[in-house]
Structure formats: C-alpha cells, structure tokens
C-alpha cells in the first residue's frame, strides 16, 4: 500500500490497535513507531492512589500504573515506539506532589502538540510543578482549578489562562479580583468572597 495511505491510516488507529499492529510484522512495528497518532480530543493523567497513576488517552484508559523508577524508562520507550507524534486537544493533569511523577509526565508529553493544558492544583508544590509543565508548552493555552489561594504576588504571576477557577472559602481584595479579571480570559471564583 502507498506510504502516504499508510500514514493516513495510522492517524485513525486507537492506541489499542497500535499495540496490536506492533506485533504483526517488522514493517508495521516500524510504521507504528514512525507515524503520527493523529488527534485525540482529550487526555487525562491523575495520581489518586499513592505511587500509582491513571492515564486516559482518547477512548483508552490505563489504570493503576506504578510510578516506580525502574519501569519509567520502559514506559517512555514504549510511548516512543507507539507514535512519532500526537496531537491532544486538552490534556488534564491531576498529579500529586511527587517530583518523580512530574518528571515522568514532562518526559511523556515532551514534544507533543497539546492545545490546552488543564491543571487541578491543591498545594504550592503542585502549583510549582504545574508551572514547570506549562513552561514546556509556551504556545498552548491553559486552564487551572486552584483549590487554595496563593499569596497575592503569586496569584498575579500566574500566566494568562483560558480559565482560572479558584475553589476555596476565602477572601480576596477587589483590587486583586480586577487584576485577575484583566489577566485571564475567564475567571471563576466559586465561593470566594471579594471585599
């Protein structure tokens, strides 16, 4: 089959099918590794369970993957053999404070085309990690669910976002509110009291 056709075909394959295609023959194992996976509307990575994470990519869900260091290289190797590129509409992150997890996520998504990066952030540490990931994607858009209220300076230093939601029972000054409104496209303050 023509090469252009095969590359087009590979953009329609789900992750599960790419895994199977790797096993068909050498030529297709190489084709899988060297072809673009196409566009996935959404992806989600979360670490609800300690030392484990869940990854959702398109229609595929992978639950309870361990963060163990010894397996990370194997996982990254597999990702590199599964596609040469991938485009993701919105990638949502909900990862804990573990820096190993952050390093893995950065390696996992490095050089990928991501439209929107969405973060759920519960602590200063997670905020730092999120900003680190954002810095890898300067051309993407961002959304953030902030579950605590950082200090004013910190709040104002956040990069412009498509949507910033602050979910905490706290108070902010009207001055800060107006400045945030000016920086971010959409601002959801939930139960936050403006005074």
């Amino acid at each position: 089959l023509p090469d252009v056709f095969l590359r087009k075909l590979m953009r329609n394959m789900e992750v599960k099918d790419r895994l199977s295609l790797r096993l068909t023959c050498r030529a297709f194992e190489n084709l899988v590794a060297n072809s673009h996976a196409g566009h996935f509307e959404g992806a989600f990575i979360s670490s609800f369970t300690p030392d484990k994470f869940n990854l959702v990519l398109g229609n595929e869900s992978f639950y309870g993957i361990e963060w163990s260091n010894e397996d990370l290289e194997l996982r990254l190797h597999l990702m590199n053999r599964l596609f040469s590129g991938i485009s993701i509409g919105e990638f949502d992150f909900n990862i804990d404070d573990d820096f190993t997890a952050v390093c893995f996520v950065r390696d996992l998504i490095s050089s990928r085309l991501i439209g929107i990066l969405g973060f759920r952030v519960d602590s200063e540490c997670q905020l730092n990690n999120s900003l680190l990931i954002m810095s890898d994607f300067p051309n993407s858009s961002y959304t953030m669910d902030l579950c605590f209220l950082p200090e004013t300076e910190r709040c104002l230093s956040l990069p412009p976002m498509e949507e910033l939601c602050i979910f905490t029972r706290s108070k902010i000054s009207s001055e800060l509110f107006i400045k945030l409104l000016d920086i971010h496209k959409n601002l959801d303050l939930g139960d936050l009291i403006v005074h």
Partner: protein
Amino acid sequence: RIYPLMRVTLTTSDGASVTVSRQLTKHSGFIEKAITDMAVDDNAVPLSAVAVDVDDATLKLVIEWLTEHRDDALPYPEKTDEERRADDIPAWDQAFVQKWDTKEDQQQTLYAVITAADKLDIKGLLDMTCKTLANKINGKTVEEMREILQLECDFTEEELAEIRKENAWCEN
C-alpha cells in the same frame, strides 16, 4: 477553468481505453496535471490520451466513484488534525465498498482502488478507502490484522515476546 462537456480519453495499464467527461477527471490531480501539460490552447484540450498506471477493471470502479462524486466541491477540503473519525463514510460509498465484499478478492479490490486513488491523486477516494480499511482493522486481533493487511509475521518468538512485554503495561 474546467470545461465539463469536454471528454478525455484515458488509456489503462492493460491497454484499454476509456473516455470520460472532464467533470469527472477534474477530481484527479494526476489527470488534471497531465491535461494541463498536454494542452495546446486555452480550451485545454489534450493532444492525446492520458496514460494512467491503473488497470481497466480498477479504473471502471474509480470512474463509478467519480461519477457519484462529480459534484463534490473542489479543491477537496484538507482534513484538519481535529478530524479523527472514521464513521462518517457516506451511505453511497459504504454500499460501493460493500459491493466488493461479495467478491472473493474483496481485499485485493480495495487495495487496487487505494493504489489507484493514490496514483491518480483523488483525495476524496483515498480518504474514504482509508476510513474503510481503518474500520476493518479497528478492534481486531493481531492475527486478524495480519490477514486483513496480508502480512507475514517475520518476528522471531523472542522478538514477539519482547514486544508483548513492552506492550504489557498499556494492555493491562
């Protein structure tokens, strides 16, 4: 500028000749370029028949598809990265492909049409056949994929075991 009433003769790889309306050939980048290259005046009339590297039986199928799609908009809209779906094949096209399924050599026919669409640079047909094959492969086992794609496994048992081991964390 396209002259829909103008007719173009195509000669196939197995020596047959087919004359078709320019209204159909305008969807083929290859034939359009050949016509333009051979044209002697503003009417864009080719000096001779256009030779296509496609056999007569396959060309007839391509012409059948082009006839149905003669009024499709041109240029063919390039798919954006956002369009991943393969379940939007028009009903006529589905029936067109289903027709081959009654033949013993259905896979060969599909591959012949895919190759012809590529050689003749017919983007819509290439797109449709790509989705058709994607739908045939999606969710199939490795063995079924080999059968559909007519592949011979050239891995050793050790190599297969290694790939299965790599795949394992995703498959579980």
